[in-house]
């Protein structure tokens, strides 16, 4: 026996600490294994539902022998660029609307009216205006990412407690100081929720744009592979898209935890969209 008597073996504490992660991984293994097994036993046509192993092979081939990496890069660029433009517009416009009630009464109704238009329906128009290249996809993504950021910015900038504002006023703070020292920090939790919603929607925006008309990107690839009945290939792209969405979401969550460390809980953060 290498262990000292009375101490819990290291591997056991490791298992206790990582219990939930282990369960989660186990669930994945059982699900994928079951899927593979059922496909084998019932001889499900690969045209209907490919086996997980076939999807994995397609992923590997796509990345190392095909041009999947290039298409991924195109979609990733469209997502990030569109998100950046949309979020920045939402932030700036939200900042102005929250500060000037006149803007809220005159401009905001039109913004809401615009938001009610399904962005998918705008895609064909934007492609005619901006062409089949990445620019049209970037703009479609931007229109989608814009609103959740805008709505949360407005709500957040108004969330500052009256006593904090009054406290700053008694210190002879001017309007701009109140904005930067109280309103903006108080708005950050809300804005980050808006960004979180926005970035996940951005992936959808880029794909939808590519569906309507594109020369490259993962959405374009889905259509190509669908036409050639390459179901394993389509599923492989779904895996990439999901991983991309999760990765972007976690990035925002990381920023969130760094920036709003002072929040005790996330009970009173709102979500828009």
């Amino acid at each position, binding site marked *: 026996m290498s262990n000292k008597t009375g101490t819990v073996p290291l591997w056991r504490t490791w298992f206790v600490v990582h219990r939930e992660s282990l369960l989660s991984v186990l669930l994945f293994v059982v699900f994928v294994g079951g899927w593979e097994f059922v496909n084998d036993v019932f001889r499900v046509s690969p045209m209907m539902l490919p086996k997980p192993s076939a999807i994995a092979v397609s992923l590997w081939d796509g990345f190392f022998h095909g041009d999947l990496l290039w298409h991924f890069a195109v979609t990733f660029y469209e997502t990030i660029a569109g998100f950046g433009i949309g979020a920045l517009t939402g932030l700036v416009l939200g900042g102005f609307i929250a500060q000037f009630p006149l803007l809220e009464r005159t401009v905001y109704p039109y913004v809401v009216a615009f938001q009610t238009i399904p962005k998918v329906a705008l895609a064909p128009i934007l492609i005619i205006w901006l062409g089949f290249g990445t620019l049209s996809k970037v703009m479609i993504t931007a229109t989608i990412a814009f609103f959740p950021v805008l709505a949360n910015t407005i709500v957040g900038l108004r969330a500052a407690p009256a*006593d*904090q504002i*009054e*406290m*700053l*006023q*008694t*210190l*002879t*703070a001017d309007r701009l*100081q109140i904005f930067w*020292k*109280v309103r903006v*920090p108080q708005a950050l939790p809300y804005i980050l929720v808006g960004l979180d919603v926005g970035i996940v929607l951005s992936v959808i925006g880029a794909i939808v744009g590519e569906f309507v008309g594109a020369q490259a990107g993962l959405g374009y690839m889905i259509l190509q592979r669908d036409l050639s009945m390459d179901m394993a290939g389509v599923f492989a792209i779904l895996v990439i898209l999901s991983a991309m969405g999760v990765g972007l979401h976690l990035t925002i969550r990381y920023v969130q935890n760094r920036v*709003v*460390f*002072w*929040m*005790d809980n996330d009970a009173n953060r709102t979500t828009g969209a």
Partner: protein
Amino acid sequence: MPLKVPSIKGATLAIAQGSAIVELAPRPAILVRDVTKTYRTRTGELVDALAKTSLAVREGEFVTIVGASGCGKSTLLKMLAGTLRPSSGEIMLRGAPVDGPNREVGVVFQSPVLLPWRTVLDNLLLPVEIQRRPRDQYLDRARHYLKLAGLDGFEAKYPNELSGGMQQRVGIGRALINDPAVLLMDEPFSALDAMTREFMNLELLRIWHADRKTVLLVTHSIPEAVFLADRVVVMSPRPGQVVEIYDIDLPRPRGLDIVTSEPFSGYARAIRRHFNVETLGSGGRNA
């Protein structure tokens, strides 16, 4: 209503309903002359929060205002702080009319109102930052104050890591950091438990003895009002008005032992009489 004329060393002042005669030899730190405040509610009706009120506070004097909810004491304090304008009358701070928030005034609120994303030190230095004073010059002062307030080693902590009493001490420190001439305190200890409250009262007196600022403190607690003050102003609600002013002739510096002394109980009894009669059945919002 009989005219009450309390005499103060070096100053004579009279307070009465409807008229005010204010004769003061030296310039008072705070002068409230015939001030009223009327609010319009959302339904459009007018509510008198404060009836015609006059009050003078000398430089270096510690005055407490005691009254039930809705007697306009917080309203009066907000007007002194410059965040609320009187409906009529005049307010002077050290000879200058109040037309907005003033650097000469430090305000301590009912809750500490600390900014949760700032460390204790950065909360303390907020007034310095807002008033664009050189931070370096106030850093030593801030550290010195933290030591005084028993917050040594807490300067890099965030407010949610502090107890309620510690948070309020940071709030008081923030009001004192840029050395204002007048300190306005709106029920600063009402959220604290009785033990912490007594401790904070002693702390406040200790700080006050050190630099003798003019302090105007609003409270619900009669013992607290008597314990701290040179003078206690008693206000009654609906509409808020000054009913009586008591000179508290107790020796300073004061320790907790005076609370059980005969003169102390005498003052407390006299003040309490106003509330037994006048505020029966009055609750309502804190105006």
